Protein backbone atom coordinates (compact mmCIF):
# COMPACT_ATOMS: atom_id res chain seq x y z
CA UNK A 1 0.00 0.00 0.00
CA UNK A 2 2.61 2.44 1.17
CA UNK A 3 4.89 1.63 -1.75
CA UNK A 4 2.07 2.24 -4.15
CA UNK A 5 1.37 5.48 -2.43
CA UNK A 6 5.02 6.53 -2.58
CA UNK A 7 5.07 5.70 -6.27
CA UNK A 8 2.07 7.87 -6.81
CA UNK A 9 3.69 10.74 -4.96
CA UNK A 10 6.84 10.29 -7.03
CA UNK A 11 4.79 10.33 -10.21
CA UNK A 12 3.01 13.43 -8.98
CA UNK A 13 6.34 15.15 -8.32
CA UNK A 14 7.52 14.14 -11.77
CA UNK A 15 4.36 15.57 -13.23
CA UNK A 16 4.90 18.80 -11.34
CA UNK A 17 8.45 18.97 -12.66
CA UNK A 18 7.36 18.30 -16.25
CA UNK A 19 4.74 20.98 -16.04
CA UNK A 20 7.20 23.53 -14.70
CA UNK A 21 9.60 22.66 -17.48
CA UNK A 22 6.82 23.12 -20.01
CA UNK A 23 6.80 19.51 -21.20
CA UNK A 24 3.04 19.13 -20.76
CA UNK A 25 0.09 21.47 -21.20
CA UNK A 26 -1.80 22.99 -18.30
CA UNK A 27 -5.01 21.05 -19.13
CA UNK A 28 -3.15 17.76 -19.15
CA UNK A 29 -1.28 18.65 -15.98
CA UNK A 30 -4.50 19.49 -14.13
CA UNK A 31 -6.25 16.36 -15.35
CA UNK A 32 -3.37 14.01 -14.42
CA UNK A 33 -2.76 15.71 -11.13
CA UNK A 34 -6.41 15.38 -10.23
CA UNK A 35 -6.33 11.72 -11.09
CA UNK A 36 -3.21 10.97 -9.01
CA UNK A 37 -4.44 12.93 -6.01
CA UNK A 38 -7.70 11.05 -6.15
CA UNK A 39 -5.80 7.78 -6.12
CA UNK A 40 -3.69 8.92 -3.17
CA UNK A 41 -6.80 9.94 -1.26
CA UNK A 42 -8.47 6.63 -1.96
CA UNK A 43 -5.39 4.86 -0.65
CA UNK A 44 -5.37 7.08 2.44
CA UNK A 45 -9.04 6.38 3.10
CA UNK A 46 -8.61 2.64 2.83
CA UNK A 47 -5.50 2.85 5.05
CA UNK A 48 -7.52 4.62 7.71
CA UNK A 49 -10.30 2.05 7.50
CA UNK A 50 -7.83 -0.76 7.82
CA UNK A 51 -6.15 0.93 10.75
CA UNK A 52 -9.46 1.38 12.51
CA UNK A 53 -10.35 -2.25 11.96
CA UNK A 54 -7.01 -3.26 13.34
CA UNK A 55 -6.02 -5.04 10.14
CA UNK A 56 -2.71 -3.39 9.83
CA UNK A 57 -0.48 -0.72 11.19
CA UNK A 58 -1.07 2.84 10.27
CA UNK A 59 0.79 3.91 7.25
CA UNK A 60 2.83 6.22 9.46
CA UNK A 61 4.69 3.32 10.93
CA UNK A 62 5.14 1.52 7.62
CA UNK A 63 6.48 4.48 5.88
CA UNK A 64 8.54 5.43 8.88
CA UNK A 65 7.03 8.90 8.90
CA UNK A 66 5.57 10.74 11.85
CA UNK A 67 3.09 13.51 12.07
CA UNK A 68 -0.27 13.64 10.45
CA UNK A 69 -2.34 10.46 10.15
CA UNK A 70 -2.13 10.41 6.40
CA UNK A 71 1.61 10.18 6.53
CA UNK A 72 2.60 13.62 5.31
CA UNK A 73 5.19 15.41 7.32
CA UNK A 74 3.99 18.86 6.51
CA UNK A 75 1.88 20.75 4.11
CA UNK A 76 4.95 21.47 2.08
CA UNK A 77 5.36 17.77 1.24
CA UNK A 78 1.68 17.20 0.73
CA UNK A 79 0.83 17.27 -2.97
CA UNK A 80 -2.66 18.38 -2.08
CA UNK A 81 -1.24 21.65 -0.88
CA UNK A 82 1.18 22.06 -3.72
CA UNK A 83 -0.27 24.65 -5.93
CA UNK A 84 0.84 26.25 -9.08
CA UNK A 85 0.97 30.04 -8.99
CA UNK A 86 -1.46 30.19 -11.88
CA UNK A 87 -3.79 27.70 -10.40
CA UNK A 88 -4.35 29.00 -6.87
CA UNK A 89 -5.68 26.67 -4.21
CA UNK A 90 -6.10 23.06 -5.16
CA UNK A 91 -9.75 22.75 -6.21
CA UNK A 92 -9.78 19.11 -5.20
CA UNK A 93 -8.78 19.75 -1.62
CA UNK A 94 -12.27 19.78 -0.17
CA UNK A 95 -13.37 16.91 -2.35
CA UNK A 96 -10.42 14.82 -1.31
CA UNK A 97 -11.43 14.89 2.31
CA UNK A 98 -13.21 11.65 3.11
CA UNK A 99 -16.88 12.24 3.76
CA UNK A 100 -18.33 10.42 6.70
CA UNK A 101 -17.69 9.86 10.39
CA UNK A 102 -16.22 7.37 12.82
CA UNK A 103 -18.63 5.96 15.41
CA UNK A 104 -17.81 5.11 19.00
CA UNK A 105 -16.57 1.66 17.96
CA UNK A 106 -14.12 3.18 15.53
CA UNK A 107 -16.12 2.13 12.52
CA UNK A 108 -16.08 4.47 9.56
CA UNK A 109 -19.43 5.38 8.01
CA UNK A 110 -18.69 6.87 4.61
CA UNK A 111 -20.97 9.53 3.12
CA UNK A 112 -23.08 9.80 6.25
CA UNK A 113 -23.48 12.44 8.91
CA UNK A 114 -23.23 11.60 12.58
CA UNK A 115 -26.73 11.31 14.10
CA UNK A 116 -27.66 14.36 16.20
CA UNK A 117 -28.04 12.36 19.39
CA UNK A 118 -24.40 11.24 19.10
CA UNK A 119 -22.97 14.66 18.40
CA UNK A 120 -20.84 16.50 20.89
CA UNK A 121 -20.18 20.00 19.77
CA UNK A 122 -17.60 20.55 22.51
CA UNK A 123 -15.45 17.77 21.13
CA UNK A 124 -12.67 19.30 19.14
CA UNK A 125 -12.33 16.12 17.13
CA UNK A 126 -15.81 16.45 15.72
CA UNK A 127 -15.48 16.90 11.98
CA UNK A 128 -16.28 20.39 10.75
CA UNK A 129 -18.98 19.16 8.45
CA UNK A 130 -20.74 17.65 11.49
CA UNK A 131 -21.76 21.15 12.84
CA UNK A 132 -25.52 21.37 12.47
CA UNK A 133 -26.60 23.53 9.60
CA UNK A 134 -29.18 25.26 11.80
CA UNK A 135 -26.42 26.49 14.15
CA UNK A 136 -24.42 27.86 11.21
CA UNK A 137 -27.49 29.58 9.86
CA UNK A 138 -28.40 31.09 13.24
CA UNK A 139 -24.84 32.36 13.68
CA UNK A 140 -24.79 34.03 10.29
CA UNK A 141 -28.22 35.61 10.87
CA UNK A 142 -27.03 36.93 14.24
CA UNK A 143 -23.89 38.34 12.63
CA UNK A 144 -25.89 40.05 9.90
CA UNK A 145 -28.30 41.45 12.51
CA UNK A 146 -25.38 42.69 14.63
CA UNK A 147 -23.74 44.33 11.65
CA UNK A 148 -27.04 45.98 10.68
CA UNK A 149 -27.44 47.34 14.23
CA UNK A 150 -23.88 48.67 14.14
CA UNK A 151 -24.57 50.33 10.79
CA UNK A 152 -27.75 51.92 12.12
CA UNK A 153 -25.91 53.14 15.22
CA UNK A 154 -23.17 54.56 13.01
CA UNK A 155 -25.76 56.28 10.86
CA UNK A 156 -27.39 57.74 13.96
CA UNK A 157 -24.03 58.91 15.26
CA UNK A 158 -23.31 60.62 11.96
CA UNK A 159 -26.69 62.35 11.95
CA UNK A 160 -26.24 63.43 15.59
CA UNK A 161 -22.82 64.88 14.88
CA UNK A 162 -24.06 66.61 11.76
CA UNK A 163 -27.06 68.18 13.49
CA UNK A 164 -25.64 69.10 16.86
CA UNK A 165 -21.93 69.23 16.22
CA UNK A 166 -20.18 72.43 15.33
CA UNK A 167 -17.54 70.77 13.24
CA UNK A 168 -16.38 68.19 15.72
CA UNK A 169 -17.00 70.25 18.84
CA UNK A 170 -20.45 69.92 20.29
CA UNK A 171 -22.55 72.99 21.02
CA UNK A 172 -24.44 71.78 24.05
CA UNK A 173 -25.85 75.26 24.71
CA UNK A 174 -27.66 75.07 21.42
CA UNK A 175 -28.69 71.52 22.14
CA UNK A 176 -30.29 72.50 25.43
CA UNK A 177 -31.88 75.58 23.86
CA UNK A 178 -30.25 77.80 26.42
CA UNK A 179 -31.21 81.45 26.22
CA UNK A 180 -28.81 84.33 26.09
CA UNK A 181 -27.85 86.98 28.58
CA UNK A 182 -26.86 90.57 27.87
CA UNK A 183 -25.29 93.29 29.96
CA UNK A 184 -25.70 96.28 27.65
CA UNK A 185 -27.96 99.10 28.74
CA UNK A 186 -28.99 102.44 27.31
CA UNK A 187 -28.41 104.07 30.70
CA UNK A 188 -24.95 102.82 31.63
CA UNK A 189 -24.13 105.65 34.02
CA UNK A 190 -27.38 105.59 36.00
CA UNK A 191 -27.47 101.83 36.06
CA UNK A 192 -23.88 101.45 36.99
CA UNK A 193 -23.86 99.81 40.38
CA UNK A 194 -20.55 98.19 39.87
CA UNK A 195 -18.34 100.13 42.13
CA UNK A 196 -19.65 103.06 44.09
CA UNK A 197 -16.25 104.07 45.36
CA UNK A 198 -15.02 104.34 41.80
CA UNK A 199 -18.04 106.37 41.02
CA UNK A 200 -17.48 108.81 43.85
CA UNK A 201 -13.85 109.10 42.91
CA UNK A 202 -14.98 110.08 39.44
CA UNK A 203 -17.52 112.49 40.80
CA UNK A 204 -15.14 115.38 40.52
CA UNK A 205 -14.81 114.59 36.83
CA UNK A 206 -18.54 114.46 36.49
CA UNK A 207 -19.02 117.72 38.36
CA UNK A 208 -16.45 119.42 36.25
CA UNK A 209 -18.05 117.96 33.18
CA UNK A 210 -21.42 119.15 34.21
CA UNK A 211 -20.20 122.59 35.00
CA UNK A 212 -18.48 122.63 31.67
CA UNK A 213 -21.68 121.61 29.92
CA UNK A 214 -23.67 124.23 31.73
CA UNK A 215 -23.09 126.57 28.87
CA UNK A 216 -24.75 124.05 26.61
CA UNK A 217 -27.70 123.85 28.87
CA UNK A 218 -27.87 127.61 29.10
CA UNK A 219 -28.35 127.63 25.39
CA UNK A 220 -31.30 125.30 25.92
CA UNK A 221 -32.61 127.64 28.58
CA UNK A 222 -33.12 130.22 25.94
CA UNK A 223 -35.78 128.02 24.42
CA UNK A 224 -39.28 128.08 25.80
CA UNK A 225 -39.26 124.34 26.37
CA UNK A 226 -36.67 124.59 29.06
CA UNK A 227 -38.16 127.11 31.38
CA UNK A 228 -36.28 127.78 34.54
CA UNK A 229 -38.94 126.06 36.56
CA UNK A 230 -38.56 122.89 34.54
CA UNK A 231 -34.92 122.68 35.07
CA UNK A 232 -35.16 123.68 38.66
CA UNK A 233 -37.28 120.64 39.12
CA UNK A 234 -34.80 118.46 37.38
CA UNK A 235 -32.08 120.12 39.31
CA UNK A 236 -33.60 119.15 42.56
CA UNK A 237 -34.63 115.90 41.00
CA UNK A 238 -31.15 115.11 40.06
CA UNK A 239 -31.54 112.80 42.91
CA UNK A 240 -30.42 110.17 40.47
CA UNK A 241 -27.03 111.60 40.87
CA UNK A 242 -27.47 112.24 44.54
CA UNK A 243 -28.27 108.59 45.02
CA UNK A 244 -25.36 107.35 43.11
CA UNK A 245 -23.26 109.37 44.80
CA UNK A 246 -21.87 112.17 46.35
CA UNK A 247 -22.39 115.53 47.75
CA UNK A 248 -19.96 117.07 45.41
CA UNK A 249 -21.89 115.65 42.50
CA UNK A 250 -25.16 117.10 43.60
CA UNK A 251 -23.47 120.33 44.49
CA UNK A 252 -22.09 120.69 41.08
CA UNK A 253 -25.51 119.90 39.68
CA UNK A 254 -26.95 122.77 41.63
CA UNK A 255 -24.27 124.85 40.12
CA UNK A 256 -25.27 123.85 36.66
CA UNK A 257 -28.87 124.33 37.63
CA UNK A 258 -28.14 127.88 38.47
CA UNK A 259 -27.28 128.31 34.87
CA UNK A 260 -30.90 127.77 33.97
CA UNK A 261 -32.28 130.22 36.58
Amino acid at each position, binding site marked *: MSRERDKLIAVLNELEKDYHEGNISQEKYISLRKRYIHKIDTLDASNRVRAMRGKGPHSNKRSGREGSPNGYNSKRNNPRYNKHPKQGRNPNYRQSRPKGYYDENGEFHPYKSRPYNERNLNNVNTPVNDVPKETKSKTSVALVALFTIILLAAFGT*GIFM*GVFGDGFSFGFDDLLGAG*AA*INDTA*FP*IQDQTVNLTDYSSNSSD*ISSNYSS*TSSDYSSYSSSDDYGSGG*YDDSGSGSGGYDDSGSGSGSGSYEGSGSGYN
Partner: protein
Amino acid sequence: MERKYIVGIVILIIVIGGAFLYANKVMKEKESHNETEYLQVSQNGVSIIVPGNWVKATSESNSSLLAVADPSSKNANGFSDISVNIERKNITDSLDAEFTRNYDTLSVTTGYQVLFSGNVSGIGGYSGLEADYISNITGVAKQHKAIWIEKDGFAYVILCTAPQSSFNSKEMIFNQIIGNFKFN
Protein backbone atom coordinates in the same frame (compact mmCIF):
# COMPACT_ATOMS: atom_id res chain seq x y z
CA MET B 1 -6.83 41.25 9.71
CA GLU B 2 -9.37 39.51 7.59
CA ARG B 3 -10.62 41.27 4.51
CA LYS B 4 -14.23 41.21 5.71
CA TYR B 5 -13.32 43.24 8.82
CA ILE B 6 -11.55 45.84 6.69
CA VAL B 7 -14.59 46.04 4.39
CA GLY B 8 -16.84 46.38 7.45
CA ILE B 9 -14.78 49.22 8.91
CA VAL B 10 -14.70 51.01 5.56
CA ILE B 11 -18.51 50.70 5.28
CA LEU B 12 -18.89 52.08 8.83
CA ILE B 13 -16.68 55.05 8.07
CA ILE B 14 -18.57 55.76 4.86
CA VAL B 15 -21.94 55.53 6.65
CA ILE B 16 -20.88 57.80 9.54
CA GLY B 17 -19.23 60.31 7.23
CA GLY B 18 -22.14 60.32 4.79
CA ALA B 19 -24.70 60.80 7.54
CA PHE B 20 -22.59 63.55 9.12
CA LEU B 21 -22.19 65.46 5.87
CA TYR B 22 -25.86 65.10 4.99
CA ALA B 23 -27.10 66.26 8.39
CA ASN B 24 -24.59 69.11 8.44
CA LYS B 25 -25.74 70.30 5.03
CA VAL B 26 -29.40 70.18 6.11
CA MET B 27 -28.63 72.16 9.27
CA LYS B 28 -26.63 74.78 7.36
CA GLU B 29 -29.54 75.24 4.96
CA LYS B 30 -31.92 75.54 7.89
CA GLU B 31 -29.68 78.10 9.61
CA SER B 32 -29.38 80.24 6.50
CA HIS B 33 -33.15 80.07 6.16
CA ASN B 34 -33.57 81.09 9.80
CA GLU B 35 -31.34 84.12 9.28
CA THR B 36 -33.64 85.51 6.64
CA GLU B 37 -36.85 84.48 8.40
CA TYR B 38 -38.07 86.89 11.09
CA LEU B 39 -40.23 86.03 14.07
CA GLN B 40 -42.36 88.34 16.17
CA VAL B 41 -41.57 88.68 19.85
CA SER B 42 -43.83 90.52 22.31
CA GLN B 43 -43.31 91.25 25.98
CA ASN B 44 -44.21 93.96 28.52
CA GLY B 45 -46.28 95.96 26.05
CA VAL B 46 -43.72 96.14 23.24
CA SER B 47 -43.33 94.04 20.14
CA ILE B 48 -40.51 93.54 17.65
CA ILE B 49 -39.47 91.10 14.96
CA VAL B 50 -36.17 89.26 15.24
CA PRO B 51 -34.21 86.86 13.01
CA GLY B 52 -35.37 83.26 13.41
CA ASN B 53 -32.04 82.16 14.85
CA TRP B 54 -32.08 84.78 17.66
CA VAL B 55 -33.35 84.03 21.13
CA LYS B 56 -34.91 85.92 24.01
CA ALA B 57 -32.32 87.09 26.48
CA THR B 58 -32.20 88.09 30.09
CA SER B 59 -30.86 91.58 30.68
CA GLU B 60 -28.92 92.75 33.67
CA SER B 61 -30.64 96.11 33.41
CA ASN B 62 -33.62 96.66 35.72
CA SER B 63 -35.18 98.93 33.11
CA SER B 64 -35.33 96.21 30.45
CA LEU B 65 -38.72 95.34 28.96
CA LEU B 66 -37.59 92.94 26.27
CA ALA B 67 -34.14 91.68 25.29
CA VAL B 68 -33.16 89.48 22.37
CA ALA B 69 -29.74 88.30 21.27
CA ASP B 70 -27.88 86.29 18.70
CA PRO B 71 -26.92 83.17 20.69
CA SER B 72 -23.91 82.53 18.49
CA SER B 73 -22.29 85.77 19.68
CA LYS B 74 -21.77 84.64 23.26
CA ASN B 75 -18.49 85.94 24.67
CA ALA B 76 -16.15 84.49 27.28
CA ASN B 77 -18.20 86.05 30.10
CA GLY B 78 -21.37 84.34 28.90
CA PHE B 79 -23.00 87.51 27.56
CA SER B 80 -24.11 87.88 23.96
CA ASP B 81 -22.28 90.63 22.11
CA ILE B 82 -24.96 91.06 19.46
CA SER B 83 -28.24 92.06 21.06
CA VAL B 84 -31.23 94.36 21.12
CA ASN B 85 -32.46 95.58 24.49
CA ILE B 86 -35.64 97.62 24.86
CA GLU B 87 -35.65 99.65 28.06
CA ARG B 88 -38.04 102.07 29.68
CA LYS B 89 -37.25 105.03 31.89
CA ASN B 90 -39.44 107.50 33.68
CA ILE B 91 -38.80 111.01 32.36
CA THR B 92 -39.19 113.91 34.68
CA ASP B 93 -38.93 116.75 32.22
CA SER B 94 -38.70 115.88 28.54
CA LEU B 95 -37.29 113.26 26.25
CA ASP B 96 -34.81 115.73 24.76
CA ALA B 97 -33.49 116.62 28.20
CA GLU B 98 -33.09 113.02 29.28
CA PHE B 99 -31.45 112.15 25.98
CA THR B 100 -29.04 115.05 26.03
CA ARG B 101 -28.15 114.53 29.66
CA ASN B 102 -27.49 110.84 29.08
CA TYR B 103 -25.18 111.26 26.12
CA ASP B 104 -23.46 114.37 27.38
CA THR B 105 -22.53 112.33 30.38
CA LEU B 106 -21.45 109.38 28.27
CA SER B 107 -19.36 111.50 25.96
CA VAL B 108 -17.16 112.59 28.83
CA THR B 109 -16.99 109.24 30.55
CA THR B 110 -13.96 107.08 30.02
CA GLY B 111 -14.70 104.18 27.68
CA TYR B 112 -17.50 105.89 25.76
CA GLN B 113 -17.41 107.85 22.55
CA VAL B 114 -20.56 109.37 21.04
CA LEU B 115 -20.48 109.18 17.25
CA PHE B 116 -23.77 110.68 16.25
CA SER B 117 -27.03 112.04 17.62
CA GLY B 118 -30.07 113.30 15.79
CA ASN B 119 -33.77 112.97 15.16
CA VAL B 120 -35.59 109.97 13.76
CA SER B 121 -39.20 109.34 12.87
CA GLY B 122 -41.53 106.47 12.11
CA ILE B 123 -40.58 104.35 15.08
CA GLY B 124 -43.79 102.56 16.03
CA GLY B 125 -45.68 105.60 14.80
CA TYR B 126 -43.62 107.97 16.96
CA SER B 127 -40.79 110.38 16.32
CA GLY B 128 -37.73 110.14 18.45
CA LEU B 129 -34.02 110.62 18.86
CA GLU B 130 -31.07 108.50 17.85
CA ALA B 131 -27.60 108.25 19.32
CA ASP B 132 -24.79 106.11 17.98
CA TYR B 133 -21.84 105.55 20.25
CA ILE B 134 -18.96 103.24 21.03
CA SER B 135 -18.26 101.69 24.39
CA ASN B 136 -15.10 99.94 25.43
CA ILE B 137 -15.57 98.82 28.99
CA THR B 138 -14.60 95.17 28.96
CA GLY B 139 -11.76 95.49 26.48
CA VAL B 140 -14.00 94.74 23.48
CA ALA B 141 -15.14 97.77 21.49
CA LYS B 142 -18.89 97.65 20.96
CA GLN B 143 -20.94 99.93 18.81
CA HIS B 144 -24.46 100.90 19.91
CA LYS B 145 -27.42 102.45 18.20
CA ALA B 146 -29.98 103.83 20.65
CA ILE B 147 -33.41 105.00 19.54
CA TRP B 148 -35.35 107.04 22.09
CA ILE B 149 -39.09 107.59 21.84
CA GLU B 150 -41.52 109.01 24.36
CA LYS B 151 -44.90 107.59 25.31
CA ASP B 152 -47.07 108.31 28.35
CA GLY B 153 -44.33 110.02 30.29
CA PHE B 154 -41.80 107.27 29.70
CA ALA B 155 -38.74 107.16 27.50
CA TYR B 156 -38.54 103.88 25.57
CA VAL B 157 -35.07 103.10 24.28
CA ILE B 158 -34.29 100.48 21.65
CA LEU B 159 -30.61 99.75 22.15
CA CYS B 160 -28.92 97.75 19.39
CA THR B 161 -25.44 96.46 20.19
CA ALA B 162 -22.76 94.62 18.21
CA PRO B 163 -18.97 94.46 18.28
CA GLN B 164 -17.62 97.47 16.43
CA SER B 165 -15.96 95.20 13.86
CA SER B 166 -19.23 93.54 12.87
CA PHE B 167 -21.70 96.35 13.52
CA ASN B 168 -22.08 97.33 9.86
CA SER B 169 -22.92 93.78 8.83
CA LYS B 170 -25.62 93.62 11.51
CA GLU B 171 -27.06 97.07 10.87
CA MET B 172 -29.60 95.75 8.38
CA ILE B 173 -31.01 93.43 11.06
CA PHE B 174 -31.07 96.28 13.58
CA ASN B 175 -32.91 98.53 11.11
CA GLN B 176 -35.47 95.77 10.54
CA ILE B 177 -36.01 95.44 14.27
CA ILE B 178 -36.27 99.20 14.82
CA GLY B 179 -38.53 99.69 11.80
CA ASN B 180 -40.96 97.03 13.02
CA PHE B 181 -41.07 98.13 16.67
CA LYS B 182 -44.63 98.48 17.96
CA PHE B 183 -46.43 99.22 21.20
CA ASN B 184 -49.04 96.58 21.98
